[in-house]
């Protein structure tokens, strides 16, 4: 990894993209890094596109990731993962949820949703790992665990150990009881395992 690590988290307003990026930032800071987090999300609360940038390292200046320099792209939705491919550096990796969230402009017949975003990403030659975070969360009993699944998914693609990130995730739930902490721990590990399995299958 370069001196500054660039992580781009993308999805749709309401999915928890900004919170996930904030937890990643907390983990980086816990390790003594400087960090900046920014997003373009003006009206994203209304179902728009959200792209959240996290940069960390010894000293971070500009908060924005320059196109062509993201190390990891974490996609909460498959078409959104596709939308931001140009941000990745050569050798960067996409970790994407296979969920398809179709916007009203597509339902109205004004635009098409791509048949297979994963295939479109593969065509670019960029490395991509896909997994179904929504179903994993549902199987654990609550779709809201999807966020933690996504954070588990990126855990082994950071320049630091997964435990630091897991600690930061669980700290958020510490006050809400042991049961929720345990559920989130399982969701995190399930995300990690899903990416691990998908990578093993690709290898």
């Amino acid at each position, binding site marked *: 990894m370069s001196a500054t690590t660039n992580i781009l988290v993308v999805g749709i307003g309401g999915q928890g993209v900004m919170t996930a990026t904030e937890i990643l930032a907390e983990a980086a800071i816990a390790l003594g890094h400087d960090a900046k987090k920014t997003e373009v999300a003006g009206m994203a609360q209304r179902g728009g596109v959200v792209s959240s940038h996290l940069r960390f390292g010894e000293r971070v200046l500009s*908060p924005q990731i320059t196109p062509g320099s993201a190390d990891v792209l974490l996609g909460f939705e498959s078409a959104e993962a596709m939308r931001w491919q*140009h941000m990745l550096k050569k050798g960067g990796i996409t970790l994407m949820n296979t969920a398809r969230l*179709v916007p009203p*402009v597509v*339902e109205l017949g004004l635009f098409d949703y*791509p048949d297979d975003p994963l295939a479109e990403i593969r065509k670019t030659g960029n490395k991509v790992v896909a997994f179904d975070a929504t179903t994993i969360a*549902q199987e654990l009993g609550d779709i809201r665990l999807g966020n933690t699944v996504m954070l588990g998914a990126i855990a082994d693609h950071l320049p630091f150990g997964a435990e630091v990130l897991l600690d930061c995730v669980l700290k958020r739930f510490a006050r809400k009881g042991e049961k929720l902490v345990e559920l989130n721990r399982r969701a995190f590990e399930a995300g990690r395992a899903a990416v691990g399995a998908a990578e093993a299958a690709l290898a």
Partner: protein
Amino acid sequence: MAAVMPAPAASRHLLSGNEAVARAVWEAGVKVAAAYPGTPSTEMLEEIATYPDLYAEWSVNEKVSLEVAIGAAYAGSRAFCCMKHVGMNVASDALMTLTLTGVSGGLVIAIADDVGLSSSQNEQDSRYWGRFAHVPVFEPADSQEAYAMTLDAFALSEQFQVPVILRMTTRINHVKSIVTVGERVPHTGAGFRKDPARYVMVPGNAGKRIPLMFQRDRDLRVVAENSPLNFIEPGSDRRVGFITSGPAYMHVKEAFPDAPVLKLGFSCPAPFEKCRELAALVDQVVVVEEVEPLLETELKAQGIAVIGKEILPLQGELSPAVLRPAIARLLGEVLPESEATTALQLFPRPPTMCVACPHLGVYYTLSQVRNLNISGDIGCYTLGAGHPWQAMDTCVSMGASMGIALGMDKGRGESDKDKRVVAVIGDSTFLHMGMQGLLDMVYNKGNVTVLLLDNRAVGMTGGQDNPGNGRDIHGNDAPRIDFAKLVSALGVKDERIHVVNPYELPVLFKTIREEVKVPEVSVIITDQPCVLIKDYHKLKPYAVDEDKCTGCGNCIDVGCPAIHVTRRGKEVKASGREVDLAFVRIESSVCTGCGLCLQPCAPKAIEHYVPSAPIQFAKGGCQA
């Protein structure tokens, strides 16, 4: 309680610029803080309100918020006011005379410019207010500076008895970076000292204050020349030096780590001698500023040779990716090829109204009524201009729907003589600046139907409380305005005032269709709450009976994001006309049972959802 409030001095936190300013406002011992919500400034006051030992209020508009802050500063207390860039247009009437009286207690006005237009109707540059009103301007470059400069601004404000503008941009307000906080220092107000020659701005008094204002400009420029907020980093590559401020400084440092840089934190009045000092160090000087060529123009007028907007964009955010090629061209260099590929082409995903939003019913109905010219306003309901409704024809500034509708009525051309003029405005926008327009409309006998969409919140900025919902900034009970009584008091005839439920489409349709025919001012008030606030109650979700769905697609025209197309088809009607079919399903996990979609459903194919397993509701109302 604020996330950082209990944090001890010298502790480090990941804070947005807004949160950093809030902490500094509390530490500075501010007694009164006031604002009207507006992206990207909103979280400053939201955060401040969670601190103890101060008074915070949502004001009805930015002018009132500034006036409240001025009163507190006249009374000798420290005061704070914040707003988005366009808010200062509203507040500027007060600002332009405040500069003559000055203040007693420190007064800091944070203005948040939406450079890049993430959620605004224009991209104006608030640094001009410093020149126009003759007040100092500070420009932080990250959260730590936003925090520190807020404290410095209070000190300068009291030293020179002048309000100080803290000019921020979205990339400061909403970027989170590390801040080391300090301790709160209580500030005791001096009390109001009567001094009509200073505080009563009639011509005789005001005229005597103007020379003092100009003297203050000269004094402040000397302070700016020597301020540690303005510093030169000498660098090693002397071919190009940069003069820059705000977030642009970070982009310059990232793109040109070896270049000499003059960073301006205290940017108005501009320290011209410091700029000359930088210019003497380097072959060429480039001014990097967002967004207008303001400093550039001043430096050129001073005879300092600088380059600026000749090579840099006049619009939008700067970034290392914008700066590198511009400077390479200036130096005649060829940049190494970027690793960035071209973005893949994909559908757009514009913001949408929420599932079950009460505005859906209003816009669906407006889209079904013909012959309307619809004057719109600023809020969530501006989305009504988009698909599928396309039921808003203008949007300019807060409250403008009223005056523009009246002007469209009075100024109608021959082709519009049979058109009905409708104005659409939200509750908070109406209270902000719409009331006066309605009064004007009544007084001047307009022919306009006003739709007042009362959803009991400032929706677009996150559902803040306002006088329309009877809660103050802390969520405590407050007097609640009665919109029907208010518009009646403004002169709208009682028989022309209707309060309707926007989920009852037949009533809404009938009311709108009848009122647009009446050649006078009517007000139709919709009364259902925003789905994102606690007043909203979810109902049982619906689902589509796929065996009954005929693919007519009427429900899609409501525009609810919970409705999804499962397959498309074509049908040839008896008339020989071919029509498109769209068979649908409802995402029952996000549907909250508002019932709008089943009203236009021809085959009655939408029924209450019968879950096969316990439903897991997704968080929030917008996921679909």
